[in-house]
């Protein structure tokens, strides 16, 4: 009578062990590398850096100095502006593209490969493209000078290196639209066309179909893809550094400047900046998810 039970238990235990064995590699990476770095960053931002001869833990003065400066809030505004605007544009373009991709049209096979191209090209190459195309010594300006629209390339209007961030936004959108499209396209394929066709037969117009039927179905895809690209945009360094307008810089660039300063004590200030980015990004992403969960519960899909 007891034998099957122990067998059952043993099997259960084996399964549990197997489950943990599957989880361990990822856990190790997350806890040791990511968690360790995070703990170190927080400790340093609170004044723990004995290797520079600084140890005043816990010391909130680095955060106080950072948050007390007006320039920090300007930089934060700039960081959020680039992140939100590019996420928004990429989302709208991604939705339009994904909706187009589920239709049939000539050349669709080719197009399916074509739109994924930016996904395979690194950001740095995109930044270089922006410099080559849109810069004041770039192709556009030289072409215009060649045609005679402007006297010489240096008269070309400033697109890059301004605080409007057209260059930064262009690179983000160029790289992230395909990502959003890919996510939504997969969701749309899974959902199928039946519900939309049913709505059309019942007399809904195009807009009604999109907002009442399609959008709620692809919402999980929208949420997950925008979360990912927004998190990237808020912490990205190279595009604002190369294409940005200089002071005031975005927060990641400020952190980098602190790290590169000859004054080693500023590295703690840099760590405080990094921790601030993490706090702000984490806060925004968490509230975003919480709002979405509430919405999910409200429509009874949890």
């Amino acid at each position, binding site marked *: 009578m007891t034998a099957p039970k122990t067998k059952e238990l043993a099997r259960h235990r084996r399964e549990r062990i197997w489950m943990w064995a599957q989880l361990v590699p990822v856990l190790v990476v997350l806890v040791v590398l990511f968690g360790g770095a995070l703990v170190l960053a927080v400790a340093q931002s609170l004044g723990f850096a*004995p*290797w520079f001869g600084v140890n005043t833990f816990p010391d909130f003065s680095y955060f106080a100095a950072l948050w007390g400066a007006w*320039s920090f809030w300007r930089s934060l505004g700039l960081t959020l502006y680039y992140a939100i605007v590019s996420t928004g544009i990429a989302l709208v373009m991604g939705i339009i593209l994904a909706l187009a991709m589920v239709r049939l049209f000539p050349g669709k096979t080719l197009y399916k490969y074509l739109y994924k191209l930016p996904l395979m090209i690194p950001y740095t190459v995109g930044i270089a493209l922006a410099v080559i195309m849109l*810069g*004041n*010594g770039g192709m556009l*300006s030289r072409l215009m000078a060649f045609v005679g629209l402007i006297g*010489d*390339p*240096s008269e070309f209007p*400033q697109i890059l*290196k*301004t*605080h409007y961030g057209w260059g930064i936004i262009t690179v983000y959108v160029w790289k992230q639209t395909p990502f959003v499209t890919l996510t939504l396209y997969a969701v749309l394929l899974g959902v199928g066309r039946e519900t939309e066709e049913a709505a059309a037969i019942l007399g809904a117009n195009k807009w009604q179909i999109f907002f009442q039927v399609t959008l709620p179905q692809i919402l999980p895809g929208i949420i997950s893809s925008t979360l990912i690209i927004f998190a990237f945009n808020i912490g990205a360094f190279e595009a604002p*550094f190369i294409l940005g*307008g*200089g*002071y005031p810089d975005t927060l990641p660039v400020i952190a980098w400047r602190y790290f*590169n*300063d*000859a*004054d*080693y*004590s500023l590295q703690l200030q840099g760590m405080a900046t990094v921790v601030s980015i993490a706090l702000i990004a984490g806060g925004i992403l968490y509230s975003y998810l919480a709002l979405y969960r509430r919405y999910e519960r409200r429509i009874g899909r949890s």
Partner: protein
Amino acid sequence: MKRILIGLTSVASLMATVAVAENAAATSFRDSFLSGSTTWEDVQARAQEEGSVNLYYWGGSDPINIWMDQVVVTDLAKLGVTLNPVRITGTKDAVDLVLAEKGAGKGPGEGSVDAIWLNGENFATLKRRDALFGAFADSMPNSANIEWSDEDPRSLLNLRDFGVETGAAEVPWSGEQYVCSINTARVDKAAAPSTFADLRSYLEVNPGKFTYVKPPHYIGNTFVQSVIYAHNPDGNGAVPFQSSIEDVGAEELARLITPGMEYLNALEPLLLGAQGGNARYPEDNAALDGMFLNGEVDFACKFGLYAVATGLNLGTYPEGAEAFVFPEGNMIKNKNFLAIPANAPNPAAALIMANYMTSVEAQVSKLKFTGMPPGVDPWRLDDAQVQALVDASPGLVGITQAELDANTAPDTNATLVNVIEATWLEYIERDSSDDIATIVARAVENLK
């Protein structure tokens, strides 16, 4: 289980013994070399045993990288040493690595950096943290190519690095001068500014046609220093800026740099992009050179005696580029060096490499490949060697050696550089409303 543990402990203790032995051998090698009881043959023999050398250097220049890979690697292989060139984006990364390893308790022979190409603040940092191998630079066979006697005023460039005494802990590798180039296709050479006042009047007529690299990048710091020398209220240029901050004092420094800082503040609305409300300071040389090439600015300044010739060859300078004398009397001259950190894993191989780099042959081929002026002193060489250097140089465009020599100025002391760059960031970039004395006092306090 127990057996495994015992095995592990014994392996660990063995490894520790090996490390200690290595450490002891490295320490004794260092001590005997610095005391002069090691012959160069011993160094060569030990270098063969070590086998490789890790040279960390700024890898942002293709010609230098090509020269390293094609010439230095081959030549050192003949001496039984494998060069491992580690290219970094900023020299500070290598300094950080050395200090981090030192902080982790890695002593002689246990680090990972054998040599660094550096100067100025980075050397001062290593020296302050006591992370240097010691006085090797004047006790190698090729040290004879460099002037070490302090009776010759020209030796200052070798004995001091940004005002910090080198103590032979680094060996000169290249000598450079801060030279400005002008695009003669846009500006008549006769109308070229030669003083800062001229520059300002030129920019009032042609707003936006000039900018300088943003401090704390050293190229930007150098421009700021030359402005400060020229506006020294006592009229004695670079003289007071040779002493350390402890000797000068915050108050005195603030008094000395105020006119220069005010000039830079007044210049800002005339710089590139300022007409659109946002003056643009390029991040580095490459960015400024790009603006110069595109005709966005009419001038470009950097450390580069042969910058114009090299730039014309590579197509990175506009065709009308010529060097000119600016700022009059304040064209800063310095040398850059190779230093060996205290915890170098292969100190003997590093010495062999440093000695090779100081040879005339290496200096000639470096000049030929990269346009980097020699770090050895020509008056210490024989005529044939001097001729070889002259033949290898890309040549000066638009300026003569006599003009360059007549307008030299020394670097600023490294401890002041930090304060001046912090002041620039606060006063010019962040438009702080505090007066300069307050800003300088704060910077001095923070940098202690």
